[in-house]
């Protein structure tokens, strides 16, 4: 048997598809959370109320500046172990949910910054026109400013999502089991002779996931661009 077929036999014992599926679902849930939190943060950032602007600036800077690993360790060892925040009787479910919250908050700071750059592409006159027809601040933000800001920031938001896809591997520090980085570490431990092939397998998996996301964002930012 050659090296390659021995590797296939070896790696079949590891549920690689399931591992990727864990990372994909982590991406979907934490990505949705990041979009919601990032949007709230950016609306606060442009609001007429100074304390909301300050709170948003603080939140964004904190999560942008702290390393993701630290955020995830805090989710596990502070929030779960010390504060004993729990969502269910199933420990692994708790870890999964806490990882989503940590990933979501961390990436929401980047989403907020992307959206803010998108808002800067919206001419001031758009907000003035919205106010002059009697829209409130929230109506102007929701109906006039944010839709244009989203279209103007699809590329940076796409980059944040791509970073998120890869960053979900840090969930292992928050004790999420069976995701790709944990499975890869286990495979490397039991099959060191295949180390290059193991790396290659997981790298290829991420490339296969990330390429369509990149193509999609490029296409979306072209087709949704606001004509001025």
């Amino acid at each position, binding site marked *: 048997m050659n090296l390659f077929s021995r590797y296939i036999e070896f790696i079949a014992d590891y549920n690689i598809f399931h591992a990727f599926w864990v990372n994909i679902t982590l991406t979907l849930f934490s990505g949705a959370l990041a979009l919601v939190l990032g949007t709230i943060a950016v609306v606060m950032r442009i609001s007429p109320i100074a304390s909301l602007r300050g709170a948003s600036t603080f939140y964004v800077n904190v999560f942008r500046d702290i390393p993701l690993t630290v955020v995830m360790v805090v989710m596990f060892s502070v929030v779960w172990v010390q504060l004993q925040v729990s969502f269910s009787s199933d420990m692994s479910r708790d870890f999964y949910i806490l990882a989503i919250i940590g990933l979501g908050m961390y990436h929401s700071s980047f989403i907020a910054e992307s959206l803010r750059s998108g808002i800067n592409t919206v001419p001031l006159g758009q907000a*003035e026109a919205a106010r002059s027809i*009697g829209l409130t601040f929230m109506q102007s933000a929701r109906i006039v400013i944010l839709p244009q800001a989203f279209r103007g920031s699809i590329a940076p938001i796409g980059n944040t999502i791509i970073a998120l896809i890869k960053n979900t591997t840090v969930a292992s520090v928050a004790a999420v089991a069976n995701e790709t980085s944990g499975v890869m570490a286990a495979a490397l431990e039991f099959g060191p002779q295949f180390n290059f092939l193991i790396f290659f397998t997981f790298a290829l998996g991420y490339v296969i996931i990330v390429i369509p996301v990149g193509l999609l964002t490029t296409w979306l930012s072209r087709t949704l661009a606001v004509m001025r």
Partner: protein
Amino acid sequence: MSGIETSDKGASDIEPSNEELSDVVAELRHVEKYFGSLHVLKDINLTVGRGEVLVVIGPSGSGKSTLCRTINRLEPIDSGEILVEGKLLPQEGKELARLRADVGMVFQSFNLFAHKTILDNVALGPRKARKIPRAEAEAEALELLDRVGIKDQANKLPAQLSGGQQQRAAIARALAMHPALMLFDEPTSALDPEMITEVLDVMVSLATQGMTMVVVTHEMGFARKAADRVIFMSDGEILEEATPEVFFTAPTTDRAKDFLAKILQH
């Protein structure tokens, strides 16, 4: 000084149908405005009568735009009072948003919502600020677009229209709120010459229908044809106030004379 002036123009289908309307639509009392240390509005006292068309003229940087923008509180003022329909403008919040809707504003750069169709642009204010059902708001929006001559453009995006068409759409958008007062801040200065007339025609027809208007413009043809009163601003002050006939033929201040000489050269 003709502070309150009731115009002799015909009855209108645009004016709001309140029962007891006073003769005064907007009143500014001792309004002061600074940008940092720059004194941009100096003790402005001004009354705009119902149905009156007031043209504001003056050199660039004299505070004409700022004056317009304070009347619907796009700019806050530092002291003085501004009343619209007898009500003092509040500082911020929902209340202000509601009062602001009574004052229509047409900008130099149109400012149509770039991601919305022309129809949506016009129907948006009534739907969202006045909670009028979509079908009703769109029906009226189409009527207004018809009135400004661009009904056939209703489903296009602003960028697909010419400047003149965009500005007419912006006028329709402001009219959709049934404003008590319309502010025009140099509505034709961003337009190519061949499109200026189509916008001015719409404005003249609004004026003859009895709309109360404050118009910043250097279009003397419009001022002569439609204005009841001209005010001349310089360095944040109102220096002259007269009928167009008197102002253009016999300005009293040197600054107004200089200014008129300059714009007449072009």
